[in-house]
C-alpha cells in the first residue's frame, strides 16, 4: 500500500468516477452528492499523504507494471508535482462541495466528469513520460469538453465548439512533436530525453529543436499564452462558474509542462539546445501580461474580468519560467498556488454575486443590490486585494518575490514597468468592478423580487478558497522554504539518475 501511494492520486479519482456512475449513486441525488464530496476529500488526503512522504523520503519513482525507467512508464512524485497534485485535489473537493448546492443538477454526470478531470490533471502532473503526458492531456481534455457543456446554453455551444476544435488541432501538433522527438532521441522518458539531448550531433539538433518548439506551441495553447489565448475568455466566461473555477488549474498544466520540458529536457545541460525556448517564452509572456491587463480594463462582466486575470497570471508565470533560475522558479511555484486559489475563488464569487442580482447578473453595471452585501463584499475585498497583489495578503508576497527574482536580468527595465503597469490596470479594473457591483444601485433592497441566500455548502467552499490568501501570507515562511526546495529539485540534474535507476 505504502509503495503504491504515488499511484493513488490517479487511481482514486478514476475509481470515484466509475463508482459514481453506478447505483445507488447514479440514481439517488443525495447519496451521489455525499459520496462525491467524500471521495474527493479522500483523494485530497491521499495527495497530502504523498506530499508528506516525498518531504520525508525524497523523490518517489513508481514504475507502472514494474517496467523500469527508460522502457516502461514511470510516475515521478517530486515536491513540485505533489504540491500541484494536492492543489488539484483541494480544488476538486471545493468544487464538488460548491456544486452540491444545486449546480450538479443542471446537466447529467457532473460528478463523474469532475473526478475524471482530476484524474487527468493529476496524471499530467505526476507522469515522467512524454507520451503518457499526451494521454493524460487527452483524459483531462475530454472531461473538460463535457464539463464545459454542462448546463450550457447557445453561447456555450459555440464557445465549446471553438475550444474542442482548437484543442484537437493542438493534440495533433503534440503528436507530431512527440514523433519528431522520438525519432531523434529514441526515447520518450523525460529524464532519459534530457540525457540524450546533450549527446545530439549534426542535423539531429535542428530536428530536436523543431520538436521542442512544436511542444511549446501545444503548451502555449493549453496555458493560454499569447497569441494562442483567444479561446480562454469566452470559454471561461460561458462555462458554469464552478466549472470555470475547476478550470483554474488547467492553464497551470500547460505552465507546469513548460517548466518540466524547458528546465529539464532543454535546460542547463542540453548541449547546443540549452535554453532554446527562453527568448520565445520571455517575450510572449510579456505580451500576454499586457494583453491580459487590457482585457481586465475592457471586461464588461465579472466572469470575463476573472478570465482575463487568469491570462495575466499565466503571463507572469511563463515569464518566471523563462528566467530559469532557482529563485525565479520558486517564486513561480508560490505564485502558481496563490493565483490558482484566488482566481477559483473569484469565479465562485462572481457566480454568487450574479445570482443575487437577478437579471443584471454579473455585469459590471448599476443594478439591484446583492442581498448579502456584507458577506460577499468582504469576500470580494479579500480576493480582490490578493489578486491585485496589495499588502498584506499572498498576492503581495508573490509579487515582491517575483520582482526580486527578475531584478538582475538583461530585460528588467522592460519587465518591471510593464508588470507594475499591468498591476495598476488590474487594480483599476477590479476596484471599478467592486465599487459598481456593491455600491452603485438602481433599485432598493426591498424591491428585489426574491432574496436568494448563499447556500451553506457554497459558503464553506468559498471560505476555503478565500482563506488561502491570508493563510499563504501567514505561513509564507514554511511555504517559501517548500517552494525553494521544490525549485532546487526541479533544477537539479542529478535527479535524472534517481529517476532512471527507479528511485534508489
Amino acid at each position, binding site marked *: 500500500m505504502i509503495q503504491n501511494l504515488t499511484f493513488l492520486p490517479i487511481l482514486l479519482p478514476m475509481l470515484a468516477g466509475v463508482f459514481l456512475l453506478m447505483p445507488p449513486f447514479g440514481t439517488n441525488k443525495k447519496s451521489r452528492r455525499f459520496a462525491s464530496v467524500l471521495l474527493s476529500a479522500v483523494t485530497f488526503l491521499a495527495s497530502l499523504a504523498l506530499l508528506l512522504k516525498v518531504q520525508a523520503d525524497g523523490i518517489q519513482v513508481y514504475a507502472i507494471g514494474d517496467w523500469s525507467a527508460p522502457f516502461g512508464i514511470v510516475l515521478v512524485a517530486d515536491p513540485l508535482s505533489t504540491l500541484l497534485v494536492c492543489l488539484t485535489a483541494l480544488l476538486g473537493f471545493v468544487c464538488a462541495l460548491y456544486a452540491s448546492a444545486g449546480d450538479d443538477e443542471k446537466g447529467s454526470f457532473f460528478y463523474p466528469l469532475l473526478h475524471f478531470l482530476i484524474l487527468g490533471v493529476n496524471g499530467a502532473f505526476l507522469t515522467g513520460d512524454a*507520451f503518457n503526458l499526451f*494521454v493524460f492531456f*487527452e483524459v483531462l481534455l*475530454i472531461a473538460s*469538453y463535457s464539463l464545459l*457543456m454542462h448546463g450550457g446554453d*447557445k453561447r456555450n*455551444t*459555440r464557445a*465549446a*465548439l*471553438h475550444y*474542442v*476544435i482548437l484543442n*484537437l*488541432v493542438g*493534440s*495533433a501538433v503534440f*503528436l*507530431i512533436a*512527440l*514523433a*519528431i522527438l*522520438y*525519432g531523434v532521441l529514441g526515447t*520518450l522518458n523525460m529524464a532519459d530525453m534530457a540525457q540524450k539531448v546533450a549527446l545530439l550531433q549534426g542535423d539531429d539538433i535542428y530536428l530536436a529543436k523543431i520538436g521542442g518548439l512544436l511542444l511549446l506551441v501545444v503548451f502555449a495553447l493549453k496555458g493560454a499564452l499569447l497569441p494562442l489565448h483567444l479561446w480562454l475568455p469566452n470559454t471561461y466566461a460561458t462555462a458554469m462558474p464552478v466549472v470555470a473555477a475547476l478550470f483554474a488549474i488547467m492553464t497551470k498544466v500547460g505552465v507546469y509542462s513548460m517548466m518540466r520540458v524547458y528546465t529539464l529536457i532543454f535546460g542547463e545541460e542540453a548541449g547546443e539546445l540549452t535554453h532554446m525556448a527562453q527568448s520565445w517564452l520571455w517575450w510572449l509572456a510579456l505580451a500576454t501580461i499586457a494583453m491580459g491587463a487590457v482585457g481586465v480594463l475592457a471586461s464588461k462582466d465579472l466572469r470575463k474580468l476573472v478570465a482575463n486575470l487568469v491570462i495575466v497570471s499565466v503571463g507572469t508565470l511563463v515569464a518566471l519560467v523563462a528566467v530559469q533560475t532557482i529563485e525565479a522558479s520558486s517564486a513561480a511555484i508560490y505564485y502558481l498556488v496563490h493565483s490558482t486559489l484566488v482566481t477559483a475563488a473569484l469565479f465562485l464569487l462572481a457566480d454568487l454575486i450574479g445570482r443575487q442580482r437577478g437579471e443584471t447578473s454579473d455585469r459590471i453595471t448599476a443594478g439591484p443590490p446583492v442581498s448579502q452585501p456584507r458577506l460577499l463584499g468582504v469576500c470580494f475585498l479579500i480576493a480582490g486585494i490578493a489578486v491585485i497583489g496589495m499588502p498584506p495578503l499572498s498576492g503581495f508576497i508573490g509579487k515582491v518575490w517575483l520582482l526580486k527574482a527578475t531584478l538582475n536580468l538583461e530585460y528588467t527595465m522592460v519587465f518591471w514597468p510593464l508588470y507594475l503597469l499591468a498591476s495598476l490596470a488590474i487594480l483599476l479594473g477590479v476596484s471599478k468592478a467592486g465599487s459598481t457591483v456593491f455600491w452603485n444601485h438602481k433599485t432598493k433592497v426591498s424591491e428585489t423580487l426574491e432574496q436568494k441566500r448563499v447556500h451553506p455548502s457554497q459558503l464553506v467552499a468559498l471560505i476555503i478558497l478565500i482563506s488561502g490568501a491570508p493563510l499563504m501570507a501567514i505561513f509564507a515562511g514554511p511555504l517559501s522554504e517548500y517552494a525553494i526546495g521544490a525549485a532546487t529539485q526541479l533544477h537539479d540534474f542529478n535527479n535524472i539518475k534517481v529517476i532512471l535507476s527507479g528511485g534508489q
Partner: protein
Amino acid sequence: MELLYASCVGLLVTCGVFLILRSRTFTVVLGLTMLSYAVNLFLFSSGRLSLNKAAVLGYSSEYADPLPQALVLTAIVIGFAMTAFVVILAIRGQTDLGSDHVDGHTPNKKSTQNKKVKV
C-alpha cells in the same frame, strides 16, 4: 518508399489544414480527421521505415521498433473518440445555433438581416 510516404503525409496535412480553415463545421471535422490520419502515419514513421522485419525480439536478427506501433494504436483510439465527440458537438451546434457555420451564424447573412430590420 521514403519519398512516397513523406509526400502522402504532406498531402494529408495540407488537405487537413485547408479544410480546418473552412467556415462550416462539417469540413472542419473532415479536416481534423485528415490531420489525425497524417499524424498517425507520421508517428508510425518515427521508428524508421523498414520492410520484412520482425516486431518481436529473438525471431530475427533485425527487428522493427515496436514502440511507435503501440503509440499509433493509442493515438488512433484517442483520435477516434475525439472525432466522435466533435461530430456530436457539431450536430448540437447546428440544432442550437441554427447554422453549421463555426461561429454559429453566417456573417453576411446576419448583416443583411440587420439591414432589413432597420428598413
